[in-house]
């Protein structure tokens, strides 16, 4: 049976910790934080987001701000995605790469105005990113850029699901002259404190992310639950966040992405300014593009009952290989899809196998389960 690997009390807590305890959340260690896995049922929370709305505390994530003259140039150097073309009030997905083309972190880039930006980064990578950014965009290279890690001072809530827009309109009735479109953000005020609202998320559903000072996080959480009560909003934990992002085939750092894996291998080439730009990792990525990646991320569905989890070996279809079990690839994420009622996953395959419809098998506790490469997103 699963057991807790380390004491929860030794972990960092988000500004919402007392709220989670009062809601009897099952708290688990994640990226050094004590985080809610669920508040009763991952399945129910998943369905809430797909059918109504769900509210997540994702305050464990980090925010690294870059401001001042040269901030745009510094980020253009750091990130694989184009930066200068991002207009104020817009958000863009991007990656920090190392010189070898591996992914240091995947982030969302916010441009608040011409010279004010911030990166929302993965909780497990806050310190690594900070060191990386300071090394490549420090005072020596960009003396006028101010770097600031506001992770601990910031609460981040995600309201996701088809009813999210109506709930935001109830919460902030006079704040927006026009509704935000996808990947737009706006700096607002709520109860005399700053509130950054962005129409973004990590669930494949419509939704918003709300950044506010840490001390206001619990009040904002409560206000969203009250505004959304008539819409059936449900508190949601990291368990549903994971099944939701998997159905949307969104990569998770540490599973699909790491320092040794490139954006091209992960199928994220559309977020890389390969043709233009002198960014960290550009040379390695251009070389990889011209010779072809050695492995390729693809989505799959199981054709037999069971669940393929992260770490399971991908082997050839036993019907075609004569029963040989040579490992061809590896599952990076896998779960039962609550929306689809079948098991889905992501994994790295030899490029020739990573095509829609390819048959293979996944070894689960020593038994091969038949599987097929599927189109992504899964829904």
């Amino acid at each position, binding site marked *: 049976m699963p057991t807790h690997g380390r004491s929860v009390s030794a972990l960092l807590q988000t500004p919402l910790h007392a709220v989670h305890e009062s809601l009897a959340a099952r708290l688990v260690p994640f990226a050094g934080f004590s985080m809610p896995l669920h508040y009763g049922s991952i399945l129910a929370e998943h369905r809430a987001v797909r059918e109504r709305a769900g509210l997540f505390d994702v305050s464990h994530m980090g925010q690294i701000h870059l401001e001042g003259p040269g901030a745009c140039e510094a980020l253009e150097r750091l990130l694989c995605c184009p930066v200068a073309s991002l207009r104020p009030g817009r958000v863009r997905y991007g990656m920090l790469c190392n010189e070898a083309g591996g992914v240091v972190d995947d982030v969302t880039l916010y441009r608040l105005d011409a010279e004010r930006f911030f990166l929302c980064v993965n909780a497990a990578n806050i310190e690594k990113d900070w060191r990386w950014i300071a090394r490549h965009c420090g005072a020596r290279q960009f003396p006028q850029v101010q770097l600031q890690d506001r992770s601990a001072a910031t609460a981040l809530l995600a309201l996701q699901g088809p009813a999210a827009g109506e709930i935001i309109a109830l919460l902030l009735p006079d704040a927006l002259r026009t509704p935000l479109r996808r990947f737009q953000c706006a700096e607002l005020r709520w109860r005399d404190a700053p509130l950054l609202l962005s129409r973004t998320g990590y669930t494949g559903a419509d939704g918003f992310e709300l950044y506010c000072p840490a001390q206001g996080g619990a009040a904002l959480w409560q206000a969203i639950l009250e505004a959304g009560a008539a819409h059936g909003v449900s508190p949601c934990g990291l368990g549903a966040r994971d099944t939701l992002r998997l159905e949307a085939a969104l990569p998770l750092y540490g599973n699909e992405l790491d320092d040794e894996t490139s954006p091209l291998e992960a199928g994220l080439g559309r977020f890389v300014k390969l043709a233009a730009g002198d960014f960290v990792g550009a040379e390695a990525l251009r070389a990889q593009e011209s010779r072809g990646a050695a492995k390729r991320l693809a989505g799959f569905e199981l054709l037999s009952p069971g669940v393929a989890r992260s770490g399971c070996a991908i082997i050839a279809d036993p019907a075609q290989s004569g029963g040989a079990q040579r490992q061809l690839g590896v599952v990076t994420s896998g*779960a039962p899809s609550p929306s689809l009622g079948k098991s889905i996953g992501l994994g790295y395959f030899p490029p020739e196998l990573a095509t829609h419809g390819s048959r293979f098998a996944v070894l689960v506790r020593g038994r091969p389960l038949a599987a097929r490469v599927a189109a992504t997103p899964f829904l």
Partner: protein
Amino acid sequence: MAEYQLPETLRYTREDEWLRPAEDGSAVVGITDYAQQQLGDVVFVELPEPGAVLQQGEACGAIESVKTVAELFAPVSGEVARCNQELAQRPEAVNEDCYGGGWILAMVPSQPAELDGLLDAAAYAQHIADRE
């Protein structure tokens, strides 16, 4: 700390299974309330084949939840008499009624002395408390 139902009439293993001797000499096996709460929503139960002969402690199946998986171990040695085939359609029965409709399999124990080595409810409750 969470509350767990632990019926006094059952025997328990350190692997979070329960066993109930039946009148026909077989023993019904399932997972405990603690186990189903730890797992969360159960979505698939991998069952052994009826007729399989198992040694005590042998892995003989698995219980998959949304987030994680737990292996199933034979609580005693013996032959698998039957399995709860309804779990193929309603795996959530393991969450809803782990001591009743969510039973997993029935065995015919071959070493009755092994039954005496299983935990009673109080000893199993202590085993849970030691881990939390």
